[in-house]
């Protein structure tokens, strides 16, 4: 009976979507530098509707041009709740991991862990990954991080929406 019940739950779980939930703590990830520095990188490189902007994909990410939390948010600026949901998704990948060894860094980095979306960054010293790593390490305010994030911002800037 237990085995049948386990199989039932496994099948039912496979059919259902993933709910990131809204009650989990964000942990130590800093929100302001995420919004300012990191989210634009993720929006351009990760969060499109054909990658992590998918509701039931691991590391589901909301963004202005990608997945929205509600239908009526399409064409609207990103909302705080969506950014917080992104933080929760990131924090849930590998709680307690050392940033430089974390899947969040190693999957998109060449030579790291297999990533369905391919290699986004060739080296750790590239501005985008340096900026993301500094945020994970809580050093976004240091000059080197600020410089990396400024360079990354130029690289990933999206054109403004049509008026």
């Amino acid at each position, binding site marked *: 009976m237990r085995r049948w019940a386990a199989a039932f739950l496994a099948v039912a779980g496979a059919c259902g979507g993933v709910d990131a939930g809204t009650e989990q703590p964000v942990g130590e990830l800093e929100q302001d530098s995420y919004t300012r520095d990191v989210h634009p990188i993720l929006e351009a490189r990760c969060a499109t*509707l054909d990658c992590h902007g998918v509701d039931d994909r691991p590391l589901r990410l909301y963004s202005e041009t990608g997945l929205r939390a509600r239908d009526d948010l*399409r064409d609207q600026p990103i909302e705080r709740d969506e950014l917080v949901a992104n933080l929760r998704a990131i924090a849930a990948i590998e709680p307690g991991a050392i940033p430089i060894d974390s899947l969040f860094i190693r999957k998109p980095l060449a030579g790291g862990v297999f990533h369905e979306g391919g290699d986004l960054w060739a080296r750790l010293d590239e501005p985008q990954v340096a900026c993301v790593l500094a945020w994970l390490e809580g050093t976004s305010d240091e000059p080197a991080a600020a410089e990396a994030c400024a360079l990354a911002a130029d690289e990933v800037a999206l054109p403004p929406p049509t008026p």
Partner: protein
Amino acid sequence: MRAAARLAVSLLLVAGCIGTTPEEELADQQGGDRYEDGPIHRPGQRCLACHGEDYTPGGQVFVVAGTVYRRADDADGLAGAEVEVTDDRGEVFSVQSNQTGNFMMSVGEVDADRRGQGWIGLARAPAFPLRVVVRYAGMEQSMRNVIHREGACAACHDRAGKGAASNGKVFVEEAP
């Protein structure tokens, strides 16, 4: 008897997960088609559902394919729109939409009887990510973000309109 009932319930659950083909799924979601098979059929639907690398009952594999509309709320596609795709190598591919607004790009030469029907053959597969611009009669729309890997425009541009997971139809003219 109870074991048989459990088996039946389990099979029904599994069938619910994997029991539909892409064609059935599209038909359920978006209805049938009023056009005959070929480059003009199923406008607005997810072309690579049946013309993708993994599943090709349509016989042709497209790398990028979709439907252009003049305005986002138009019911019918727009003929003669230019779709320009720039890949990660900087190569530019351009094709004009056909009479139902469809366009498609495949690798290799297009059969002679299909040329000029919104279909272009590429010498090699484009390198993702892709940037896309659509033009018609002096109007132009550019995708703000890139396509990372999905070649079927309708996967992210549902003809049912805008929503949480859809940017709405591909269009060239803003509504007045």
